[in-house]
């Protein structure tokens, strides 16, 4: 079966004062139907640019290459009308900062109902459906709350309102970019639980972008690890986390601060995350990699299959979980 979305060799070039910056450099992964894919990496690794490319929200001057196939249809080269219909309907997005996405001067219920009204739904039906969506997103007393403005909601409630808004168009894919990063831990856990249950109940596919491996570990079936605009490794979440096939993934796993173990600081990775502006030659990870050797400095590893469903961009993938 062909995947819902297939990202193949995606390249995003952005103009910058120092010349063209390749912020996404040949990224490939699939999102199967009804599956959550986690996109993980440190800041500046290109996660947001990848997700935004999928939905067609890139800064002016951005140049794309590669392919984005939606149910087999090449949407990167589709006409703007088609791309607009795709965005907001079949693909919806929720962001880290819901305030930036919600209109401060409009009642939340009205904003959530907007897409329904535009599709020609009757007023009373719109209201009924909005109440349903609020309820689905876990907003208490929905019929009263839909009269509120965004500033009358707490951070967690705003994120729920964003989720209701995203679900209004009945999408097949939900892009969630750091949806819980700004929230308190207890609220974060509730929102993640909500996203998981919605994903499961509605049979949605989800691309969950996060810098926090713990978040991705709890929600994603599959994980794509990015480093300096490229894929370092991808595969089923539990397999990737328990037996990483890339030294960068292994380092991320080891440096997760856990409540039950005190090992995150035992062997910190040296150096700072590479930026696309100063991407080291060969394997971009080589200056920080404990397994690096001569070949890594000159030859850029390709992403290759290293086991069933497991892909790695390390020349020495087989050594990672052995050493």
């Amino acid at each position, binding site marked *: 079966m062909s995947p819902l979305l297939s990202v193949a060799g995606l390249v995003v070039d952005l103009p910058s004062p120092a010349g063209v910056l390749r912020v996404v450099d040949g990224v490939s992964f699939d999102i199967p139907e009804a599956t959550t894919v986690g996109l993980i990496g440190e800041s500046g690794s290109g996660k947001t640019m990848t997700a935004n490319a999928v939905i067609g929200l890139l800064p002016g001057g951005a140049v794309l290459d590669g392919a984005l196939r939606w149910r087999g249809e090449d949407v990167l080269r589709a006409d703007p009308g088609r791309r607009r219909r795709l965005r907001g309907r079949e693909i919806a997005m929720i962001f880290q900062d819901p305030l930036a996405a919600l209109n401060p001067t409009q009642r939340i219920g009205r904003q959530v109902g907007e897409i329904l009204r535009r599709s020609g739904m009757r007023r009373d039906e719109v209201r009924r459906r909005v109440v349903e969506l609020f309820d689905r997103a876990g907003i208490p007393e929905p019929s009263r709350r839909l009269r509120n403005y965004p500033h009358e909601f707490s951070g967690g409630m705003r994120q729920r309102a964003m989720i209701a808004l995203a679900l209004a168009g009945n999408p097949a894919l939900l892009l969630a970019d750091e949806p819980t990063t700004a929230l308190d*831990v207890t609220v974060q856990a509730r929102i993640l*639980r909500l996203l998981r249950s919605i994903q499961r109940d509605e049979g949605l596919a989800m691309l969950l972008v996060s810098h926090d491996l713990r978040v991705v*570990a709890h929600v994603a079936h599959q994980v794509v690890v990015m480093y300096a605009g490229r894929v370092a490794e991808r595969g089923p979440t539990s397999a990737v986390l328990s037996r990483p096939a890339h030294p960068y993934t292994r380092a991320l796993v080891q440096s997760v*601060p*856990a*409540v039950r173990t005190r090992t995150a600081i035992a062997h*910190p990775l*040296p150096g*700072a995350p590479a930026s696309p502006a100063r991407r080291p030659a060969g394997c971009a990870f080589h200056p920080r990699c404990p397994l690096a050797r001569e070949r890594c400095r000159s030859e850029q590893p390709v992403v290759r299959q290293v086991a069933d469903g497991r892909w790695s961009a390390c020349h020495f993938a087989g050594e990672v979980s052995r050493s």
Partner: protein
Amino acid sequence: MIEVRELTVKFKRFVAVDDVSLSVAADETVGLVGESGSGKTTVARAIVGLQRPDSGTITLDGVRLGPVARRPKARQRAIQMVFQDPRSSLNPLMSVASIINEAWRTHPDSAPTGDRTMAVHRLLEDVGLDPSVARHRADELSGGQCQRVSIARALAVKPRLLVCDEAVSALDVSVQAQILRLLVDLRRRHRLSMLFISHDLGVVHQIADRIAVMRGGVLVEEGPATEVLGSPRHDYTRSLLDAALELNTHHGEVGK
């Protein structure tokens, strides 16, 4: 060493910190956790003297501390703070060397007697930076480097207590682990006491001997880190623990 007794801080009618008592012994690291708005930063600001308490006392070695402006210099410098945002807590246009020299100008009794350039280099090496960083301006540094400079600036005046308010929260995990490791090493090398504030229980667990939990301005639980995390007594601590994500729980279990 430092003792906070029955501290209360109000903003107009709002009680941000309510009757909090907390102490940090010599060589000890105390973690202060709690959700946003629970009063952690306000406690920290009162300790360093940036926030006037409405009631309660703060003592250093048994001697009461007033507001920062009225603290004797030696007592001011005994307590240094490292903030969350490494960029906005350093003047971006100043060189790293001048940032550190400024700390010595403020507290001349902690300034080195010999060659200042060499002293700056030693300090930078102490926090894991290359001495060549001294010439750079703060805005040329990465987030992790900035945080190391903030720590070097605090150490420059030879403090006894380091108050770290979300000092690693804005950093990427790999850099976060480096800075936590640095703090643990420095604490041993310099026999520092630390009050380490974070909303992330996992982060606090890496570094704290004891943990204090705040909620709505009130300190609800306090004890050895292993006990507070292993067998919490207060429901609120338990709910924080339930919400804390771990890697080893399988896909499908987010809290309860």
